[in-house]
Each structure stands twice: as C-alpha cells, then as structure tokens.
C-alpha cells in the first residue's frame, strides 16, 4: 500500500516512561526506500524510537505515522506483519527448527506449505546458509553469526515493506559483522525496503544508512544524508565523527 506521502513520519513525538523523558519532541520523516540509521550513545533513545514504529511502544505525546496512518489507528497485527524486526539478541524460538523460525510469519499469514518451504530455502541461501545443512537444526546448534543470519532471513520472510533493525550485528565478531552488513546492503538494494537501523557505531551508521539521524538524550540533534553528516559541526556529531576519524585510517576506502 505505498502512498505518495512519506513511509514513516514522527510528529512531535515525546515518550515518558516512569516520569523520565526518553524522547523529547522528535519530528522527522523517512521516505520510501531510504535507510535511516538512528545513531547515538547508549540511552539516547534510539531503541525507544525504533519500538514506536511497530507500536511496541506508543507515544506519550505526538504521533507516529506509518504510510500516513497513526500507529494508534493501525490494526497492530497487520502493522507488525508488514515490518521485519531484527534485534541484537536475535530472539529465535528455541523450540522451532531453523526452517520453522524462518517460515513463522508466512505461516501466520496462511501461506501454503510448499510456498513457505520454497521461500525458506531461498532466504537461507540469500543470507549465506545452506538450507540442506541448516533447515532441520535448532537455534542452539548454531553460532552467533549463523543465528543472526537466520534472524535476518526471518525478518524478510513475508516480504515486509519495512525493516527495523536494533543493533542487529552488535554482538558479532568484526568479520561476521562486515559480511552481514554487506548482505544487508545487497538485500536492501535488491528488495527496496524502507529500513530503520539503530546503531551506536558511527562506522556502521555510515556504511548502511542513506540518511543518519543523530539522537542525543532524547533530542534529534540532526538528520542529514550521510554525505552531509561528515560536514556537520554540532558537538555530538563531532564527537561521533572523531570516532570515525580514528577508524578511517583502516577502514575508509568504501565510505567516501
């Protein structure tokens, strides 16, 4: 149901949890096909902002619009089934095989079994796992990197219009992280998903985002394209860019 307006819009969103202001008057839009990275330190409100999009949390004030409709007006089940969700802890069902985990949302949506099986195989291949080897295993038999690949496959299974990722590769070793970032980029470009990607790693933010929103203690510091982000001069942006400079000597080739 793509419409002419923005895919996502935060309108003066504030969130208060237990009297503490977590998000303060946040307003921004994400257009169809963009990848917005929400960058910030721990406790900046990134995860809270992400969880507003699939209505795991609702705004205390303001509203979050998905395809022009407020999350409070959506049918929650329908809203969430249109959004793939990947979190650092992965959250695979331990009592389901890998195939059952990946096929979960298609099965909830009532796809015929052959189509689910086909889709599961395709997706496992796309995230670099051999279906014959992995389909019948259980999550505890996989390494962290393999589990997160399954997590990504599961999020994509029912071909959602959105991908929401919360530090998805944060717990992985650097090699796996780089590989998964590449796979994410390839999948996103091919599938044209609108994505929101939470990270505290400025290099990851620059790598995967078309746009970067910098959050600082619940405020939106800036939202720019990643090219412009390099030229921003706010204090928090400079702090993150300093971290980027440190890594630039080793890892800048693909960025600029």
């Amino acid at each position: 149901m793509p419409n002419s307006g923005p895919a996502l819009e935060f309108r003066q969103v504030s969130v208060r949890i237990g009297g503490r202001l977590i998000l303060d008057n946040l307003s921004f839009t994400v257009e169809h096909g963009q990848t917005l990275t929400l960058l910030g330190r721990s406790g900046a409100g990134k995860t809270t902002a992400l969880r507003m999009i699939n209505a795991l949390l609702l705004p205390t004030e303001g509203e979050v619009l998905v395809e022009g409709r407020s999350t409070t007006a959506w049918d929650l089940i329908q809203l969430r089934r249109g959004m793939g969700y990947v979190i650092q802890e992965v959250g695979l069902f331990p009592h389901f095989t890998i195939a059952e985990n990946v096929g979960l949302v298609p099965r909830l949506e009532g796809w015929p079994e052959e189509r689910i099986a086909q889709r599961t195989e395709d997706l496992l291949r796309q995230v670099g796992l051999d279906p014959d080897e992995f389909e019948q295993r259980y999550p505890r038999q996989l390494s962290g990197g393999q589990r997160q690949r399954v997590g990504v496959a599961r999020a994509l299974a029912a071909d959602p219009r959105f991908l929401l990722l919360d530090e998805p590769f944060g717990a992985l070793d650097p090699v796996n992280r780089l590989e998964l970032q590449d796979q994410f980029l390839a999948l996103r470009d091919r599938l044209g998903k609108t994505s929101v990607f939470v990270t505290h790693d400025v290099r990851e933010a620059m790598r995967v985002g078309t746009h970067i929103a910098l959050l600082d203690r619940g405020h939106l510091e800036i939202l720019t394209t990643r090219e412009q982000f390099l030229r921003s001069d706010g204090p928090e942006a400079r702090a993150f860019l300093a971290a980027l400079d440190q890594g630039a000597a080793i890892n800048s080739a693909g960025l600029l």
Partner: protein
Amino acid sequence: MIRSDLLDEIAQLTSEHFVLVLVSMGIAAAIAIPLGVLLTRRPVLRGPLLGFANVVQTIPSLALFGFLIPIPFIGGIGKRTAIVALVFYALLPILRNTLVGILGVDAAVRESAVAMGMTGRQLLWQVEMPLAARTILAGVRVATVTTIGTATIAAAIGGGGLGVFIFRGIASVDTVQILAGAIPAALLALISDGGLGWIERRFSAA
C-alpha cells in the same frame, strides 16, 4: 502371613486412592494452569492469589479436611470433600510453576513474537506454553507426589483410599495393616514421580 482377602483389599483401596489423586490433580491443573496464565497478564493479582495459595498450604491437612466438613456444597463426609481439600493443596505448586515457567521465557523471544505480529493467543500457545511446559509439568509432578501422601488422610473423613488401612492399623495397633496402606502409597508416589519425570524430560527440546 498375607491372606488373599488382604491382597484384594489392597488392590481395591489402591485403585480408589489412585482415582482420588487423579481426579484431584485433574481439577487442580484445570484451575491452576489457566490461573497461572492469568497472573502473567495481570501482575496486580499475583500477590493476593499466590498469598492465598500459600496460606492454604500452611494449614495442617487433617485440619483442612476437618474445616471442610461443615461447609455446604463442597463439604460433608466422603470423597467429594476429600477431593476439594486435595485440590486446594495441589494448587500452589502448579500455579507457581506456571507463572515462573511463562515469565521465564526469554524476553527477546517474547519481543520477537509480538513484533512479528503474533496475537496474544498465538504467543501463548505457540511460544509461551511450549517453552514453559517443562516447568509446569515439574509443578504437576511435585503436586502429584504430595497429593498421594496427603490423600491417605482422606480416610479420616470417609474419603476412602489407602488411608483406610493406615487409620485401621493405628486404631488396632496392627503393623501389617499400616504397612498395607503405607507401602502401596509409597510405591504409587515413586511410580508417579518417575513417570511424570520421564514426560518432563521429553520436553527438553528447549
């Protein structure tokens, strides 16, 4: 010297005992498991309900059987009163383990389930119950073993079962009679513990 009429009576009272326990456990599970699920959804009820179940457990069993006798509908003399008392005792372990089992489901798993658009019912039946099954069964096992012991007291209010031997043996200072009640009860408890433990281990996939 064991006469054949004693063996017949052992068989008859053992099966009576077994039925008493089976019916009580069935009712207790049918009450405590849904109630435990309710408590996971309504934290405010946890204190009062667990408190009530705890208090019931502290009442000496003979006294509880006695208390129930004058109460209309659920009380009186006989099996029905015995079953009511046994159900009260069995509630706490099942209730507590249902609560603990469901709350013990990994937060990331639960969050994923909700975020992928599972309904409350799907979350319960496809995620929470399968993952909590082992813990819930452990509660049922503990409750069953204690109920088998407690059910011997049912004989005091005319509930029948192996307690009949024990009370008769005490009254007539007859060790054979006491053992005729105690040994089958102990065996019943051991077999139930082993059998339910085996089922429990089969839920170890998670």
